[in-house]
């Protein structure tokens, strides 16, 4: 993708953010380093996995199977995209850059710990509430609709 396509994404108005950039870390360089390329590849793989999760969330037949898509795809795709942008940020190896990477790693670790936990909490709440799992034979999508019980 070239730069003009990127401009058309933003829709013509220019991002005048000079007031933000004054005291900022220089994260975006004009050239491409090896780290940038690695980061882009990681982030792209993460986006592909998120595509799988999103399509699964849309297409899967019942609550529990959708949970499979959300619980797994969400974790790894967030991890990969965050690590990818961490690598993109880290090309000057400054102190501030390393601190940013540490913070990104903290977010990654946090998501790795909490995503399965909240999945589990939701699964359990749904199960105890009596949402019926579909099985191979049953054709009905969800036996229980919202508002019953």
């Amino acid at each position, binding site marked *: *993708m070239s730069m003009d396509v990127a401009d058309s994404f933003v829709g013509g108005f220019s991002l005048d953010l000079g007031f*933000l950039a004054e005291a900022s870390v220089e994260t975006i360089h004009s050239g491409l380093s090896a780290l940038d390329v690695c980061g882009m590849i990681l982030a792209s793989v993460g*986006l592909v996995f998120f595509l799988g999760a999103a399509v699964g969330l*849309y297409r899967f037949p019942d609550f529990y199977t959708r949970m499979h898509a959300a619980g797994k795809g969400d974790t790894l795709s967030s991890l990969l995209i965050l690590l990818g942008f961490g690598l993109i940020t880290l090309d000057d190896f400054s102190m501030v850059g390393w*601190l940013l990477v540490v913070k990104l790693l903290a977010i990654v670790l*946090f998501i790795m710990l909490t995503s399965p936990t*909240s999945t589990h909490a939701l699964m359990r*709440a749904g199960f*105890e*509430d009596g949402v019926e799992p579909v099985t191979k034979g049953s054709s009905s999508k969800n036996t229980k609709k919202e508002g019953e019980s």
Partner: protein
Amino acid sequence: MTVEGFTVFAGAALFVLMLPALYRVAVGPTSFDRLVAVNVIGTKTAVLLVVIGTLFGRLDMFVDFALAYALLNFVASLAVARYLNRTRSMPAKKPAKRRTPRKKKARAS
């Protein structure tokens, strides 16, 4: 392909891929479906904040927002899950038949 172009593309792709989840929030047959989708959107918003920070060149600021957002998202989804669980099972009518009786001693969770 420049880094900035890729960043804009990644942000746009993240946004577009949130739309199926938003569909699930709108029509999901049970409230739990909606909650799952909200959870996914929340996690991806934290990621989107990091992308936006990279684009603006202020990642040192936006990464804190992303961290706080991830924390809040987890607490919120946990709280709503517990809330739905408790309110549905509280009324005086009998609990669902399938539900196995809880052993009081063994309940470690």
